[in-house]
């Protein structure tokens, strides 16, 4: 087994670490704490945060990649160890090989037989045309009629296990937090249900395709789950990548004014005046070409797809860069008029120090707000881009690709609804949670809105 660290993996973990550090730093600052407290003191805040956290957990687990070692072939004396060119992730292990159980082609959720007829030989060896049984569904059943009962019993056991597991996980939390004033119970409720759901999925997916299979016979549920990593990473990394540019330029423009301001304004007006989609399309093609021209940079296909993905994040970052820059510029302008900056001037404090101690800390809330607001927007954008054909690499599971591939399936008779449903559900859940959460964050951190509440 040989760990593989993709660029995106590295970045996402970097992000997690830096965020952790960020909060560690901020915990001293009472105002920020107050505001976070405000976010989490609402049930909604707890619930949405837990959901998002769950998604992120999956994304993180799915970002721990490695390549399996190949067992030595008999008859060949090999000193060196060779590795499979397929990259696996810890998450794949947790799903218990859900992704490895391929059917021949479409099959409905919980189906035991294929969705399409095939030529078969019956007992008598006669050619007949019928729905063949699935390779990985209901093998353990004597006859199909037991399916309902079987599912039920397996569900019950799964739930029991789930409850046990969640008890184990939530128990300590309860001991720790039962005194706290925050509505943890809401979070625990969600945690519990997510855990139960997870256990249920894993245990049942051994015997059935819970969300059926797609054209190529791949398990739809598995694909939807794989989509999580793509969604979460895109949503976070794109912003992460653009942050440095936007913040530096924005702050500089707002603080130094004059020609710096002019240049920065020129930059973002120019960028934002280009129809975004064209910019993105062109840039994505560009990276595509670069990758095609340097194939030897990438040991396995996964890395290629990953490079493309990073590129996409980068481009999305650059295109959405101008709005944040504009905001920060405005805020900086305001701040640099405020008393404490003036006072600092009166004390002859150096520019860098003023920027570092007075300006930056006071624009952080804007960054934070954009970060959470953009997240959902980016996740949604991915789907659209994939439709236009400039999205993430097809070999990389993503909701956009699923939707794109499944578009025509709706028009089949009988309709194939499960692929779209899978993508829809997982995407919707994430984006909804993110949106609700970002609302709370904005209400807490945006001085305008908080002012409103104090008035009313």
């Amino acid at each position: 087994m040989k760990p593989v660290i993709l660029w995106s993996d590295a970045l996402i973990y970097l992000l997690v670490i830096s965020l952790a550090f960020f909060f560690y730093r901020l915990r001293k600052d009472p105002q920020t704490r107050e505001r976070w407290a405000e976010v989490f003191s609402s049930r909604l805040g707890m619930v949405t945060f837990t959901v998002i956290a769950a998604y992120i957990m999956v994304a993180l687990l799915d970002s721990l990649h490695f390549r399996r070692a190949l067992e030595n072939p008999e008859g060949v004396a090999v000193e060196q160890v060779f590795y499979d060119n397929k990259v696996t992730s810890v998450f794949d292990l947790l799903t218990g090989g859900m992704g490895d159980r391929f059917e021949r082609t479409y099959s409905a959720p919980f189906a035991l037989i294929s969705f399409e007829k095939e030529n078969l030989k019956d007992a008598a060896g006669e050619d007949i045309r019928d729905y063949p049984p699935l390779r990985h569904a209901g093998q353990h059943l004597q006859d199909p009629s037991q399916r309902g009962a079987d599912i039920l019993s397996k569900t019950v056991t799964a739930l029991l296990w789930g409850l046990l597991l969640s008890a184990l996980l939530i128990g300590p939390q309860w001991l720790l937090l039962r005194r706290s004033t925050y509505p943890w119970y809401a979070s625990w409720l969600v945690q519990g249900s997510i855990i139960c759901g997870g256990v249920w999925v894993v245990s049942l997916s051994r015997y059935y395709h819970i969300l059926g299979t797609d054209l190529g016979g791949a398990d739809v549920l598995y694909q939807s789950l794989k989509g999580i990593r793509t969604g979460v990473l895109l949503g976070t990394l794109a912003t992460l990548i653009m942050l440095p540019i936007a913040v530096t330029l924005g702050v500089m423009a707002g603080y130094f004014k004059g020609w710096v301001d002019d240049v920065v304004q020129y930059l973002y007006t120019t960028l934002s005046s280009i129809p975004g989609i064209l910019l993105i399309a062109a840039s994505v093609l560009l990276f595509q070409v670069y990758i095609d021209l340097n194939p030897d940079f990438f040991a396995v296909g996964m890395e290629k797809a990953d490079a493309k993905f990073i590129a996409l994040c980068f481009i999305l970052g650059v295109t959405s860069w101008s709005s944040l820059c504009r905001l920060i510029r405005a805020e900086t302008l305001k701040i640099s008029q405020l008393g404490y900056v003036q006072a600092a001037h009166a004390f002859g404090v150096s520019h860098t120090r003023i920027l570092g101690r007075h300006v930056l800390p006071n624009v952080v809330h804007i960054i934070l707000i954009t970060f959470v607001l953009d997240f959902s927007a980016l996740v949604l954008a991915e789907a659209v881009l994939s439709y236009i054909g400039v999205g993430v690499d097809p070999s990389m599971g993503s909701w956009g690709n699923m939707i794109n591939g499944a578009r025509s399936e709706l028009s089949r008779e009988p309709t194939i609804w499960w692929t779209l449903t899978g993508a829809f559900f997982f995407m919707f859940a994430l984006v909804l949670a993110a949106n609700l959460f970002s609302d709370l964050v904005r209400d807490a951190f945006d001085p305008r809105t908080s002012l409103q509440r104090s008035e009313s």
Partner: protein
Amino acid sequence: MSALKQQLAAGSVCMRVADLTVVLADSGEAIVKGISFELKAGQIFALVGESGSGKSVTSLAAMRLLPDALKISSGSVDVEGTDLFGLSEARMQEIRGRKVAMIFQNAMSALNPVQTAGAQVAETLKLHTPLRGAALRQRVVQLFTEVGIPDPEQRFGFFPHQLSGGQQQRVMIAMALACEPDVLIADEPTTALDVTIQLQVLNLIRELTRSRQLAVLLITHDMGVVKNTADEVAVMYRGELIERASVKQFFHNPQQAYSRKLIDALPDLGRFRAAAEEEPLLVLQDVKVHFPIRKGLLQRTVDYTRAVDGVSLAIGRGETFALVGESGSGKSTLGRAILNLEEIAGGEILIRGEAIQGIGRSAMLPYRKQIQVIFQNPFSSMNPRMTVGDIIAEGMISLGLALSEEARSTRIQELLERVQLGGEHARRYPHEFSGGQLQRIAIARALAVNPQLIICDEPTSALDVSIRAEVLELLAELQREFGVSYLFITHDLSIVPTLAHKVGVMQSGKLVEQGTAEQILTAPQHPYTQALLAAVPRLN
């Protein structure tokens, strides 16, 4: 004058507020605790109190205009025998503006910015009277004339931002009186105005009260205002009415200590500080600060707004120079210019004879030790994300004194002690302090680099009267102690005598008159100074 009005004899009760209690909707904590009073026709009832005493809430409650966060838990407001609290919202809408009208503090924001002044007054009439069309307009113009708005015909079509502060407030009044209500509630009607205007507006209200037999509830924090306008006073403190009396006896002998405190805050223009010794520390010679006005295609500078237009003055060591003037007179700009935060267009600024105008950032550093500043708004002048300790330390660090860590912290301790705040506050954050305390911290910050001159830019105007006195007292002490000089920028003459040796009066960028406090306050030469002086409420 309607028939109704005729019957109303002077002194007959128009509105009776009984045992009014207002609580926070969620926590149920009481903001106004069962207060009662009644308004009589032709009289002004002043409700006095400092910020947060619940006086505004009372007025809003009477109109049932409370925000969702507050609710009326008990009490009644009785107008002509009908209890307003018992009425349906629909009926209440008919009462508002017709029987009971209201004027708000900040006219600028209280007027709808995208509606013309005339239209806004007309709207009230439309709501409650059959007047329409030409007649309506005619009536509005008439009202405008009544409240003394110059050429009303034309002003009718003006938008609020095109009117001066005083005129805006007059429009508010016109709007309130349009339907000839019996009761007028005026919530801090003059706070946002310059002293001279303040006086005019108050006079107008008083006249109208008499002429229309209005029952007025005047809400204010300014004893001067009360003394000059009200007939009856009630002092509100922490949501309760602690004292009620007629103006005369109230000022004669107040019952409560708190009331006494309020009265004492009023200036006594009799005592002055003797001028200190004349060793010029800061000298300004014909200083000009100009802001360009750009116009046209290429944004060429066609003219300048002369914010400061040739000011010359001298401040001696250990002396206080009060720079008085109304908003926009350029006094704050002058302050910033001295601090070298504003490019000066002409003249000289000399500190102990050394010219500092237009020198570089680094070259300025040594002088920064000598000149420090205290700003008007204590809340915005402290970085909310730094501890008080860091805030005070900042100057010391950047100006490179008290180098060692512990040396610095001990110094901070001392300073905080000195401004009567415990040293333990060093680790706290600004938002945990009240305005008064913050201003003390600001003083400590300024003192930290032991300067010779501190520019105090309206340091007290954001504070309540009682606190204000304390801060001024502190400043005075410090002066005696460290022999530091102040350039004291203020709009309010009343505080001058307590601390100023010299006074300069500024009007539209020019120093129209300067001299010792005594000269200015007793024998003002310039008419503008006289006007300012006349506007100051005084005890005797």
